[in-house]
């Protein structure tokens, strides 16, 4: 398009998916991702695509499984409680090497929780998006423009590595409006998928999409091969933004909405002469351990800021082998930390002027 539009995060996610070649959206209503599905219901018929409102999140995610199995770029979106239901299909897709895009516009939990922004699904997204030994790609945008960029990236890497990918957003990013430029996908070349179950046309052996392996040796072998692929991903696909980290004594680690807040807090600290910096993981899986390890060589302390009771902090500690103290500050239940609160935590850690 080349033009800049003022768009809501949820709508930008939807348009970005269409420009990334997605023509099949399977959804189920839930706040605060509502605008995404509504946008798809309006746009998909205009681009010859499918918008289907399923009977449940379970069904929507399994429709994605079917559609992706046929080789299409398919997606679903939801918010926290709905993602729990989608984990069934996500596990099957991971176990069958089927790519898909799942968007989680997080809200407070557990249970029905609340409808305000939250980051309490970090564990679910990065550790256990369903049963079994597997990982999915997890991207954490912090701006509406980044949401757009990461949708394309998620589809591309999902296809490349044949695995589900998730955009882990939150109600704040989903609802906020920012100017965005959406790439024009009209010349997009989508990758061939010789594994797809789209009919063999009497030209090849039948393809099977399956996650059942009754022989333990066979299942172990397959899972191990998948984890070898994960190692390649960990090596090649880490993404993080580093802000004022080079001379920082205290490095705040935060992603998504809490990174925006932390960015402001770092600016406030710097204005007081405190050497603070920010590492913002953009991929949550693979976790950007390289950036943290590099920072741990010079920083004195880390402060993990999340909109949860502290879920990413374990990965921060592991990334730096607990070589430096890692403090935590978080709000949860839909509460959003302020820059001043984060600044106070930076000062408490003894940030030197």
């Amino acid at each position, binding site marked *: 398009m080349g033009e800049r539009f003022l768009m809501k995060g949820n709508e930008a996610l939807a348009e970005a998916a269409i420009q990334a070649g997605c023509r099949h959206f399977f959804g189920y209503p839930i706040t605060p991702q509502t605008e995404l599905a509504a946008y798809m219901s309006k746009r998909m018929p205009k681009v010859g695509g499918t918008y289907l409102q*399923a009977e449940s999140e379970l069904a929507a995610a399994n429709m994605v499984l079917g559609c992706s199995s046929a080789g299409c770029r398919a997606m679903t979106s939801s918010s926290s409680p709905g993602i729990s239901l989608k984990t069934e299909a996500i596990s099957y897709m991971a176990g069958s090497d089927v790519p898909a895009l799942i968007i989680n516009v997080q809200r407070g939990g557990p249970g029905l929780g609340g409808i305000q922004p939250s980051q309490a699904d970090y564990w679910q997204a990065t550790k256990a998006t369903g049963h079994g030994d597997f990982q999915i790609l997890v991207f954490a945008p912090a701006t509406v423009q980044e949401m757009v960029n990461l949708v394309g990236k998620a589809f591309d890497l999902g296809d490349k590595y044949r695995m589900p990918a998730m955009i882990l957003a939150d109600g704040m990013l989903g609802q906020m409006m920012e100017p965005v430029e959406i790439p024009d996908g009209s010349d997009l070349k989508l990758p061939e998928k010789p594994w797809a179950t789209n009919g063999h046309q009497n030209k090849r052996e039948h393809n099977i999409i399956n996650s059942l392996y009754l022989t333990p040796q066979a299942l172990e072998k397959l899972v191990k091969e998948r984890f070898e692929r994960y190692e390649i991903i960990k090596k090649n696909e880490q993404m993080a933004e580093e802000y004022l980290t080079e001379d920082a004594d205290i490095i705040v680690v935060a992603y998504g909405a809490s990174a925006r807040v932390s960015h402001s807090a770092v600016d406030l600290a710097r204005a007081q002469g405190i050497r603070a910096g920010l590492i913002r993981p953009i991929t949550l899986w693979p976790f950007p351990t390289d950036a943290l390890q590099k920072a741990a060589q010079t920083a004195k302390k880390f402060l993990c800021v999340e909109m949860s009771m502290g879920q990413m902090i374990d990965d921060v500690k592991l990334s730096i082998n607990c070589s430096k103290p890692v403090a935590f500050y978080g709000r949860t239940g839909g509460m959003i930390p302020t820059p001043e609160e984060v600044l106070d935590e930076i000062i408490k850690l003894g940030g030197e002027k």
Partner: protein
Amino acid sequence: MAVVFEKPHALTSAPFHYCPGCTHGIIHRLVAEVIDELGVEGKTVGVSPVGCAVMNYDYFNCDMVEAPHGRAPAVATGLKRAKPDNVIFTYQGDGDLAAIGTAETVHSATRGENITVIFVNNTIYGMTGGQMAPTSLPGQVTQTTPYGRDVNTAGYPVRVCEMLSTLDGVALAQRVAVDCVKNINVAKKAIKKAFQNQIDGKGFSIVEVLSTCPTNWGLSPVEALDWLREKMIPYYPLGVYKDEEKGARLK
């Protein structure tokens, strides 16, 4: 020498794993014969259930997807929306289709999703060792109804074809059995119609096939067929419950 009988092309050469006297084998063959006769193997994608037929992705020569338990109609919906010209069928048992997958069954039916559903009803969870199914008969002894299915505590069986026949999206809902040659012939015609309906864009078609489970019923294959005729068919009468043109339905 003239060939008088051969394996349908739509079946692979993998030996079936089914128990002696189980009718899955007959039903697989009928589906495969229909795929052959319609000449659609190359554009057919089947969806395997969870249950005894879970591994039928190894038996059908068309492309196959193995779905989570009960979700076959949702997976089929995704496959069909992806490639509307392809022929998509699900093959599901009673636990899969009428218990855990009830929502997917009913809603794909009411959407008029243009797919074919082969529903194998043997009144029991076979693969897990014979637990009560949504279609177990009142009084039927299973592993989890050891004193017989008590409708006061375990409720009543689900009659799927009758239930689905009330939905506008359904083009065909027919119950058949494969206990004798005559019924097998009727079953084959029904399955063929269920596939032809899809090719003609008529919407959701389901063929319920009453089937035996000698192993978990604790009967010999012959006794199992008798039980099917004496107990099952009276509760689940064979016949066409709905057969409509899509155009007529939408008015």
